[in-house]
């Protein structure tokens, strides 16, 4: 008898096989929007135990699936029809690709006989998505549906995670098939065993180093290796910096942890990188936002690069020692006490010297202080999802991030509109958690329709909308690097966001003075349903410090100093 991978063998339609295979794969929630070419699947959902969340735009479905996957540590699944439904998923798929999020995107397609004829709502989503998926399938026979779902889930989760697309022609959804073939032999991207000689060389290099520094990236959280990393730090006493996606991998209160490096990183982190003699890179990829001008980055450092994905090693900066393999295993093998007391003291002094200050003058609301206070009040289990722009950097700098999966941010793609759908996905994955969405007046308008999804399912996301009446980050760059020639950044004609949220049925209120902040935080945290707090902030506020484009991380500007 054929191995049906947990799916009961019987005669079913391709759509029914799809739903059954998702259930068998342990999927319990999918985000989607129906349409003509996916109707058989929606019909099959009527009889399914899968929880379908009807979003109000397919991009919201993909980004909600992303938030669900990141916060829940599970695969996120989104579903759309052909043509515009499929193309609307693309931004979310690209986001998952660049941030290595396990996702299954399922699209309806016109019937097989119509494919390639420019039929109504036909696009080649398989071809369009090739650069932004880990893998993709067009299923040509109903008999192959369940095996394809199994294979897709395995690919999405294994090795370096990523999105997988399944395009399902309508006739295949409708066709009936009996027992499904057994699982295709899936060559899951095995994480290689670390090379023993390289491990020995790395241990020796580490032992000889006088100023070693950990450079921690998102790969640590993806590998669920934060506890191995913290054990390693406890034994070695190594100071550390992290990328945007590495935030939370190390205890933010550790005295030798210097915070985020890079364009909007902490001066302590950037100075330490520039003066270290060894960089131990763990699950990071030398992204340009982290390194600044690459040829001046960590100029005196040798590099040991640890990553599960061999293709990331040496991509932008060559490593003296490459260690492709399981991060926990490699860290355990390298762990040793290091005689670096004076370097540790130097780094702790840097941390103290450049500690964030929250005593900005004036009565206006100081966004960094609000975010800091809210994060501390929200507690250890809070998850913050942010959009893209100035507020994204303020969250990275000032939110007390205690775990990698407590911070959802569109790091690679930088997709405005990410925050709200990702937050709703995260809240559904972690109903016990306090989920806060920090957005801006530019970003929230990109997926504002998902307020309706919050309302429909009573998803208790707390939204903090920092409104400066402009596209703040672009305005800041125009001020600093384009001679204050402001071009298309004015959003002063924004809608009344409180009234808008209320029109969606969401509780909402606004604040515009510093004295209102403690009460606003209490109201946000006490709310039992979705709530939006509109925060009026100074349109001239900038994010500091800033490494100018094309400059070394040692050349930070700090207008707040």
């Amino acid at each position, binding site marked *: 008898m054929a191995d049906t991978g947990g799916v009961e063998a019987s005669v079913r339609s391709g759509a029914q096989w799809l739903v059954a295979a998702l259930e068998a794969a342990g999927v319990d929630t999918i985000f989607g929007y129906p349409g003509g070419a996916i109707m058989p699947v929606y019909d099959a959902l009527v009889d399914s135990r899968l929880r379908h969340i009807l979003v109000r735009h397919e991009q919201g479905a993909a980004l909600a699936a992303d938030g669900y996957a990141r916060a829940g540590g599970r695969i996120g699944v989104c579903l759309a029809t052909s043509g515009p439904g499929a193309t609307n998923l693309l931004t979310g798929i690209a986001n998952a690709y660049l941030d290595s999020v396990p996702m299954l995107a399922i699209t309806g397609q016109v019937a097989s006989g119509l494919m390639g004829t420019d039929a109504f709502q036909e696009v080649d989503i398989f*071809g369009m998505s090739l650069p932004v998926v880990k893998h993709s399938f067009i299923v040509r026979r109903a008999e192959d549906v369940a095996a394809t779902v199994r294979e897709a889930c395995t690919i999405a989760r294994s090795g370096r995670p990523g999105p997988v697309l399944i395009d399902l022609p309508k006739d295949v959804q409708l066709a009936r098939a009996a027992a499904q073939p057994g699982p295709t032999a899936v060559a899951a991207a095995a994480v290689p065993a670390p090379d023993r000689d390289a491990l020995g060389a790395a241990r020796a290099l580490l032992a000889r180093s006088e100023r070693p520094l950990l450079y921690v990236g998102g790969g640590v959280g993806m590998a669920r290796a934060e506890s191995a990393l913290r054990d390693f730090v406890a034994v070695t006493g190594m100071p550390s910096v992290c990328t945007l996606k590495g935030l939370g991998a190390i205890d933010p209160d550790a005295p030798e942890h210097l915070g985020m490096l890079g364009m909007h990183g902490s001066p302590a982190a950037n100075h330490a990188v520039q003066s270290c003699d060894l960089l131990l890179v763990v699950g990071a990829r030398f992204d340009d936002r982290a390194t600044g001008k690459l040829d001046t980055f960590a100029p005196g450092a040798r590099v040991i690069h640890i990553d599960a994905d061999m*293709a990331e090693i*040496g991509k932008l900066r060559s490593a003296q020692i490459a260690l492709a393999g399981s991060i926990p295993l490699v860290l355990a093998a390298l762990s040793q006490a290091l005689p670096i007391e004076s370097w540790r003291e130097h780094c702790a002094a840097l941390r103290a010297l450049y500690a964030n200050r929250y005593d900005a003058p004036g009565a206006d609301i100081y966004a960094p202080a609000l975010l800091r206070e809210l994060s501390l009040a929200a507690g250890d289990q809070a998850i913050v999802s942010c959009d893209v722009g100035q507020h994204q950097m303020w969250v990275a700098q000032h939110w007390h991030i205690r775990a990698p999966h407590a911070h959802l941010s569109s790091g690679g793609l930088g997709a405005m509109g990410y925050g709200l759908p990702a937050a709703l996905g995260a809240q559904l994955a972690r109903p016990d958690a306090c989920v806060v969405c920090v957005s801006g007046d530019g970003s929230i308008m990109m997926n504002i329709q998902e307020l309706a999804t919050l309302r429909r399912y009573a998803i208790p996301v707390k939204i903090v909308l920092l409104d400066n009446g402009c596209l703040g980050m672009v305005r800041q760059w125009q001020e600093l690097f384009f001679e204050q020639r402001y071009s298309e950044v004015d959003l002063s004609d924004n809608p009344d966001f409180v009234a808008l949220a209320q029109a969606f049925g969401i509780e909402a209120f606004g604040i515009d003075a510093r004295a209102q902040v403690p009460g606003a935080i209490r109201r946000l945290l006490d709310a039992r349903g979705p709530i939006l707090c509109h925060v009026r902030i100074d349109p001239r506020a900038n994010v500091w410090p800033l490494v100018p484009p094309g400059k070394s991380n040692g050349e930070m500007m700090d207008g707040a100093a």
Partner: protein
Amino acid sequence: MIQRLHVTLLDVEGALQRLLGTAERRGFHVLQLHAEVGAGDLCRVALTLEGVRDAMLLRRQLERLHEVREVSLATE
């Protein structure tokens, strides 16, 4: 620099597109291509590429494609 790659990959839908797209997106210009489907649903591809980036890195990027089974590299 001219690079010659030999790639063995599963003959599945989109495999060639994915292979060529990856090479081009990673900064290589395809000068010559020979592809032949053989036994066991395997397709053998000989590629001649031009590019200034590290071909070893491209090799690793191709090796992580799901359908790719083997990549070998010879620099001319």
